[in-house]
């Protein structure tokens, strides 16, 4: 067992990737995630692994696409506006059923925005910015330890479902250091000998492509993809419930911001209001069912995000129509502080009780 060490989120992701057998990394610099590439450039060269300082994010994700076809564990990392450039190839990878881990350490947008922290890519990640019927799995870490744990999980799910997985972190998490333990990768190796491209040696040749001029076949292919997504939705919903069981009010938040919201819950509990936090760790698949169950007992839900409320629509879909839902958030800048959240939430809670 290794011990806890002081780690930045970006470095934790890079170390975890190496530790679970990632042999290929392709990337192009962009703040606030550049340390991932810097760290791996050195380590991968030392180990004779594949590292390319790509000429663009378009090249990086396409190198990842090629590398994934060999069955290798493959990662690229980037941020927001540059992840936008990767969307075409992500759509291809979904159709090709190729496992790629894409790390997005979010910054503020739209456009270049700035390197301020933000959670503005919830929609881009969960809905997808590419064309056609597809889904990518999206995992959201809230602390440096989870940067490690969910990186392991991202590689595992990518291989298990042969699908791209997005690890959606944010600039704050990428840049902050806290104690974390580089645990062993808990997941088993997945056999890919039935599909990888490594030369037609003692077996029929294979090809991997998204183009399909036969309409019936293309339809069937997409229907098959959706059967897989159904399985993912059944099996892979991941969330944290904090004091939700008896809650009068449930906050919903994801990523590192959820830690402030946890403190807000503690504040309310001390003051006699039963508050809880529901934190989706998988943003796709979104844990609709669990949130729906909670809305049978809890009348108020407050969505807290560092964006203009991108997760609201998923919460609305999940909770029963008689539950009240409100939003606290802003697009960027310093993470919402506890007092700011409490001030806004006090009004929401007061208004609700005045209205019944």
């Amino acid at each position, binding site marked *: 067992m290794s011990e806890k060490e002081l780690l930045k989120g970006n470095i934790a992701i890079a170390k975890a990737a190496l530790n679970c057998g990632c042999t290929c990394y392709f990337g192009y610099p962009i703040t606030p995630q550049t340390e991932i590439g810097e760290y791996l450039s050195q380590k991968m060269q030392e180990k*004779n692994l*594949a590292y390319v300082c790509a000429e663009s994010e378009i*090249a990086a994700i396409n*190198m990842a696409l090629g590398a994934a076809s060999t069955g290798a564990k493959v990662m690229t990392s980037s941020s927001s506006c540059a992840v936008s450039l990767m969307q075409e190839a992500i759509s291809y990878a979904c159709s*090709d059923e190729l496992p790629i881990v894409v790390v997005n350490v979010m910054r503020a947008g739209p456009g270049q925005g700035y390197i301020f922290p933000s959670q503005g890519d919830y929609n881009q990640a969960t809905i997808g910015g590419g064309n056609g019927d597809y889904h990518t799995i999206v995992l959201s870490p809230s602390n440096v330890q989870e940067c490690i744990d969910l990186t392991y999980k991202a590689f595992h799910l990518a291989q298990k479902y042969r699908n791209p997985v997005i690890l959606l972190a944010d600039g704050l998490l990428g840049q902050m250091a806290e104690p974390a333990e580089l645990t062993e990768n808990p997941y088993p190796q997945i056999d890919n000998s039935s599909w990888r491209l490594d*030369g037609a040696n003692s077996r029929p*040749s294979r090809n991997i492509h998204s183009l399909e001029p036969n309409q019936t076949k293309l339809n069937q292919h997409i229907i098959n993809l959706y059967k897989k997504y159904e399985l993912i939705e059944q099996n892979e919903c991941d969330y944290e419930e904090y004091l939700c069981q008896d809650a009068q009010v449930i906050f919903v938040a994801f990523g590192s911001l959820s830690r402030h919201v946890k403190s807000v819950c503690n504040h309310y509990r001390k003051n006699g209001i039963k508050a809880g936090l529901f934190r989706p760790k998988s943003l796709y698949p979104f844990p609709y069912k669990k949130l729906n169950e909670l809305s049978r007992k809890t009348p108020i839900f407050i969505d807290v995000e560092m964006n203009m409320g991108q997760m609201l629509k998923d919460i609305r879909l999940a909770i029963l129509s008689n539950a009240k839902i409100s939003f606290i958030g802003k697009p960027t800048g310093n993470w919402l502080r506890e007092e700011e959240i409490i001030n806004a939430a006090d009004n929401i809670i007061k208004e609700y009780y005045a209205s019944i």
Partner: protein
Amino acid sequence: MQVYSAPKAIKENSDFTFCPGCDHGIAIKIIAHLIDELNLKENTVAIASSGCSVFLYNFLDIDCLESPHGRACAVATGVKRAHKAQGNNKFVFTYQGDGDFASIGLAESMHSALRGENITAICINNTNYGMTGGQLGPTTAMGQVTTTSQNGRNKEYHGFPIRTAEQIALCEGTSFSARVALYDIKNIINAKNIIKKAFEYQNQGLGFSFVEILSSCPTNWKLSPKDSHEKIKNELTQIFPLGIFKDIKND
């Protein structure tokens, strides 16, 4: 005595999906013969690109991966490097159109050459975007009529075409860069020898090897197959001269 047989690397019963008289078929057959001759079938991953070239995997009985439009050299880089990281040296080549290689994918193509990526790129130059119906592309000749240059390419509106093989020859990581044509038997035999050399340079680990093939597109040129070959012989080779522009062994 058997004087001719189809290459083993060609799939049995594959239908010819190119237009009649199109040189894509000859180019793919040359590649298939070379895969046989150099014994590459069991160790190769080919990258097909967007364009008429995409159907490569319908003909070649080898592992093939399709690339998004223009990204074939980046995809090939990933395949080659990933296998290397796993301790395997695979033979990796791309099969791309001129639009794919030299327009939308120019950055990926040129940077692969600059990195000296140990892959081979084959570029079918038919002086237009064939698959989408013959629009002006990066290699469309001055004066050439296409659906988006209906009065002919002119420098004020469209600027100038690229001589791809010459440009790739300028990259330090390039081991070999040449242009060939397929308009008669002599040129077909020469093309095969040239492509063979490009393949061998990859096998010898010498870096990026590149062959541009002047290729007919009778459908979009609105010429018969025979007249298309005449056009290549008489006009296109004047603009895009045949030859070897870089050979690391002779430089």
